């Protein structure tokens, strides 16, 4: 359950970063198009986050079911992202920070006795 939530937040952040590599969504969120450098950073960050986000799924459910779940979770978080980008672009950005925060909380809770 926690793993699934973490995966959802990570895929959300990853997809959001990918969308922020595109001019249209930069306009929606920042009000202006970014230069090539930051755009590229967003793209790399997005790919990296998506690649890493499968780890909690596989950890929780094993390889095959983890893969199926990962695809499904990605669909769900992409849907949330698309709706937020249209109706609340700024909160769409803030929600990204939940992923590292949740990961940190999880790491702490497992490290502490």
């Amino acid at each position: 359950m926690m793993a699934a939530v973490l995966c959802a937040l990570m895929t959300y952040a990853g997809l959001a970063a990918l969308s922020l590599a595109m001019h249209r969504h930069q306009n929606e969120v920042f009000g202006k198009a970014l230069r090539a450098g930051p755009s590229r950073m967003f793209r790399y960050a997005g790919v990296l986050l998506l690649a890493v986000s499968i780890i909690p799924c596989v950890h929780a459910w094993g390889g095959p079911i983890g893969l199926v779940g990962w695809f499904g979770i990605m669909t769900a978080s992409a849907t949330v992202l698309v709706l937020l980008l249209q109706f609340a672009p700024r909160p769409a950005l803030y929600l990204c920070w939940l992923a590292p925060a949740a990961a940190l909380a999880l790491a702490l809770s497992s490290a502490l006795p």
Partner: protein
Amino acid sequence: MKNGFRQSMAWLHTWAGLLVGWMLFAIFISGTAAYYRSAITEWMQPERLIGQTRTADAGKSPQAVAAEHALARLAVVAPHASRWMVDLPDGRSAVGEIAWQMPGSARFHSESVAASGNVKVRATKGGDFFYEFHYRLHYVPPLIGSWIVSFCAMFMLIAIVSGVITHRRIFADFFTFRQGKGQRSWLDAHTASAVLALPYHTMVTYTGLVTLMTMLMPWGMLDRYPQKDGGVMTFYAEAYDFANPAPAVGKPATLVAIAPLLAQANQRFGEQTARRIWVDQPGDAGARIKITRGTGDRISISTESITFNGVTGQRLATYARDDVTGQTAGVMMGLHEATFAPPFVRAVYFISGLIGALMVATGLIMWAIKHRQKSEKNGRIGFGTRLVEHLNIAAIAGMPIAVAAYFWANRLLPVDVAMRQKLEINLFFAVWALTAIHPLLRKSRRAWLEQLFFGAALFVLLPALDRITVGTWVMPSFDLVCLGLGAILALCALFLLRRRSPRRKPAAAKTRAEPAPHTSNHTAHAHTPPQPEPSTRQAAVRHTLHKEPTQ
């Protein structure tokens, strides 16, 4: 040439989608509901959830208690059956299912039984209704129903492939949904719902076809299993571990105790993973008992089983398909039915299913809008456009009402009424038929609004009805999902209401401000040849102005 190809794909996508769209919507909704079929059955038999006292017999697993209980029940209701079947309750549900088949008949009669105790439950088909409707419809012979569904699934696959080619900007528009832009928004909603769940749509359509493969592509099987060697029945026995019961010997004998056999099976399969018990010729000296494995935590549904002598309890045969072909088929069917899915994965399956229904619905609505605009230009609205609009309302707004009505019927019909199970299902279809008649008496927009609000009200009030008729919320998660579905329907209705208000002006301004590439793509999609930019802009403006009086 490229343009020609894309245009022909667009044609294919439009008509393949339209022809079976309404069926696909119903299939998507019923299939999505079927992911939770045991939960739905549980909710529809609240007696089981309220009066649950798990009396643990000393030294016996709850599974063995449930099995004994189910077999005792079968001995009462169907002592002369040629085959009994018991679906044992698994971790997800406390509902066991029994079914029996009379000699010389292919039909199974089924009934739910409590896992333990003697709770009297109301008769209902529960979630199995959606499951069966999903692949073989209702009121038509199962084989014909399956053929219709297969036909629709084939068209769905065609629509998916041609759709990816047609809507070529799906990846550039990956995260894009622009509201309040008329047809453009519908297109956005259609492509977004398609592309965001594309892995699911492709998987579920293809694996759905795989579950029907012996009907759709029987030639390999027919060639390999000629009639003289027993034909398809041999194939079923080898591939699916399925065989008809052997004839009875004719000498009465007592059935062996089930608990030790279950223990043997669980030892082989893993704790608590035995899932189904088949008893052939119960009460006869030639009785056979077969216990099959549930999926447990594997994706594959491919079977494993042990067969016992029903009188002596001696182990006769074991069956397992762990070869590559068997596992491939098993994994595909497992992926389709999501039998393996842990709660969170099941939830994303459910969400993806709803998104699939949304994709079909937006596609159908887009067709209607496009053709209405076209025919308004011509001055008269043709029968085809009217028909599509009408069917859209009955399918998209009507089906949810029918689903809600099915749940309402379950709570409102007297518990002991005769033929209760059938009555609920008949009510489902009666209500659906009414939603198909209703648009005849109303203007299109009014019919949409009334049906959407009515459906929303039915779903939102369902928890209240549950509370009043049963006295408690038997399954809060079910109620929460109902509230969610009601909210979605209400949002759709509110969206429609808002579009009535004079809000077209800013939208028109925005259309004009739209950068050229999008506009030209938009027109390209509408099958008009690409035009130079300024005239396209004027066309867009004229377009909006033209729509003004009708909005």
